[in-house]
């Protein structure tokens, strides 16, 4: 007698128990603490915060641990938590010009006010495995310049002073920015919504698209005008008080890409911009974002849309790794009802094919 498979509930619960076991791993080793993850796997934590759109290092570290280091899984867990949070209000736009910079570099000027500041970078490290990191050797304290009290001037402001770069759209003149987490996307998007989508977009996907623009798939002649990493103030307007109060500081990475533009009959020749802003320290993501942002502005500048990176609907519809992983991985769910329907059709068509072949054979034999 045939007995149908049952017991999905028990199977699920056992699978999750095994997951918890594997997550903890060898019990003779101490468990990773959240503080350790925040402190020592900081860039992974930053990526989770950026793509989950939630600035909370502790929760991001918890998600990373819970996800066994699977970044997209961790991003997903933190996103799902974010969506349940009540919204108390909207902060004012952060002023990255007033950033307390820890790193600031420009590829367009040799020296500039505020100077080039390398900060804690992998750049110029030789990528040689470091055996000293196998243990827990004493590490020297970092040396840092005394933090300046003056804000560090933005490179884009230097170019703007000469009117050689397009003006930034003033947010005052526009309507309130959209919110892609609260409204369904409607193509074509405004740049506000596009930048929001890119800011939470998958780093790998944006990196590949950005790379494609450099290889000629919609070349934008980019110069890294400036990359800065540091703390910015988050402020919220309190109508009852009549002024803004600070909620605290967040670390962000900003990239201003300076791109070529030949000008038109209406506009004098000037550089154009691509913009990237990401939570935490995430230079690769900010740079990729700014390249893709610039490529996506093609229609704004009357450029032909010839490459994937310029195709807004294509880029934004596929940049979200939580959506992408869900839909790709859903293929492992049962599909046997649909498969049965296809199987039935293929078998029927196969029978028709075979009998048609038989007729052909018979006709051949008869002819011989």
């Amino acid at each position, binding site marked *: 007698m045939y007995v149908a498979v049952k017991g999905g509930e028990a199977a699920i619960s056992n699978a999750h128990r095994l997951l918890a076991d594997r997550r903890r791993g060898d019990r003779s080793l101490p468990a990773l603490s959240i503080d350790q993850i925040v402190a020592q796997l900081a860039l992974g934590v930053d990526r989770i915060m950026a793509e989950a759109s939630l600035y909370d290092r502790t929760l991001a570290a918890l998600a990373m641990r819970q996800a066994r280091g699977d970044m997209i899984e961790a991003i997903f867990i933190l996103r799902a938590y974010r969506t349940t949070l009540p919204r108390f209000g909207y902060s004012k736009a952060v002023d990255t010009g007033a950033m307390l910079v820890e790193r600031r570099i420009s590829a367009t000027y040799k020296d500039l006010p505020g100077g080039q500041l390398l900060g804690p970078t992998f750049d110029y490290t030789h990528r040689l495995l470091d055996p000293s990191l196998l243990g827990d050797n004493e590490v020297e304290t970092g040396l840092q310049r005394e933090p300046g009290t003056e804000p560090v001037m933005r490179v884009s402001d230097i170019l703007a002073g000469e009117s050689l770069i397009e003006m930034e759209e003033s947010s005052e003149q526009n309507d309130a920015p959209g919110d892609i987490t609260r409204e369904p996307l409607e193509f074509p998007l405004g740049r506000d919504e596009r930048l929001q989508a890119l800011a939470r977009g998958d780093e790998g996907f944006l990196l590949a698209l950005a790379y494609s623009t450099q290889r000629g798939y919609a070349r934008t002649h980019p110069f890294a005008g400036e990359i800065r990493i540091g703390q910015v103030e988050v402020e919220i307007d309190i109508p009852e008080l009549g002024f803004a109060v600070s909620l605290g500081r967040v670390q962000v990475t900003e990239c201003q890409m300076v791109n070529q533009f030949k000008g038109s009959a209406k506009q004098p020749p000037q550089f154009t911009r691509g913009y990237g802003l990401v939570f935490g320290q995430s230079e690769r993501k900010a740079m990729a974002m700014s390249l893709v942002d610039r490529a996506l502005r093609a229609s704004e500048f009357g450029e032909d849309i010839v490459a994937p990176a310029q195709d807004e609907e294509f880029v934004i519809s596929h940049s979200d790794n939580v959506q992408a992983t869900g839909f790709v991985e859903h293929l492992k769910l049962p599909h046997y009802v649909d498969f049965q329907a296809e199987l039935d059709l293929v078998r029927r*068509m196969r029978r028709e094919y075979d009998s048609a072949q038989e007729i052909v054979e018979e006709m051949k034999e008869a002819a011989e």
Partner: protein
Amino acid sequence: MSTPETDLATYNFAYLDEQTKRMIRRAILKAIAIPGYQVPFASREMPMPYGWGTGGVQVTAAVIGPDDTLKVIDQGADDTTNAVSIRAFFQKVANVAVTTKTREATVIQTRHRIPEEKLTEGQVLVYQVPIPEPLRFLEPRETETRKMHALEEYGLMHVKLYEDIARNGHIATTYAYPVKVEGRYVMDPSPIPKFDNPKMHMSEALQLFGAGREKRIYAIPPHTKVVSLDFEDHPFEVQKFAKPCALCGAHGVYLDEVILDDKGGRMFVCSDTDFCEERREAGHVGELGVANKEAAE
């Protein structure tokens, strides 16, 4: 106070916050008023992956109340892992009564099937939808497909179906077979086998469709015309199975193929597990089934 609201300290009733529910509820009402039209909604991240029923879950969460009885099926079965997981989710966050009996359910969330038993007034069938746009595989751009729906320009779909016939002698679409709702919108019925399409037509139950990742909600009110697209010389027809269910002997139902061994042994059994069990309890026996003891005695 001991209302269900305070008992569920960590989550709001049915998980979603009230603002989100209002937004979804408004979308559902407009969807019902415009049968077959896909209403955009600000789908939320859910604690389960996109593509695993987040649209259906959001619709169910916006609809369900403490008086409801919920049934969840995947591939027609109540005990498939994803159905188990979604049912457990609602038990946890809405403390709702659950059932596997189609007849007892007031809300049925489904993936890929419509129950065999005729649905009745007062029941709501919530479909999980992966790709709500029936024209998507013909035209990937939302900006284009939206225009086609606005202008009722469905020629492309007919061309595609006719090309199938020219190439294969059949319309090669066997599931997610497009329908026209109330003579206006062409609609994707979600990946149900086309066998189930006729059940949507003039159903007594309200049918709601939720696509979470694609952020669309659409609906078919009860007693609404739902016609599968076809041609005069190639009329729409559903799959027919050569044999009845091997366990309960039912004819005219959708069957799953079960491989029994590696020598080509196979059997066909009801995909709707509740329907099959009920028949067996009533004493029906298929060729590989065993007579129900109580019924036999």
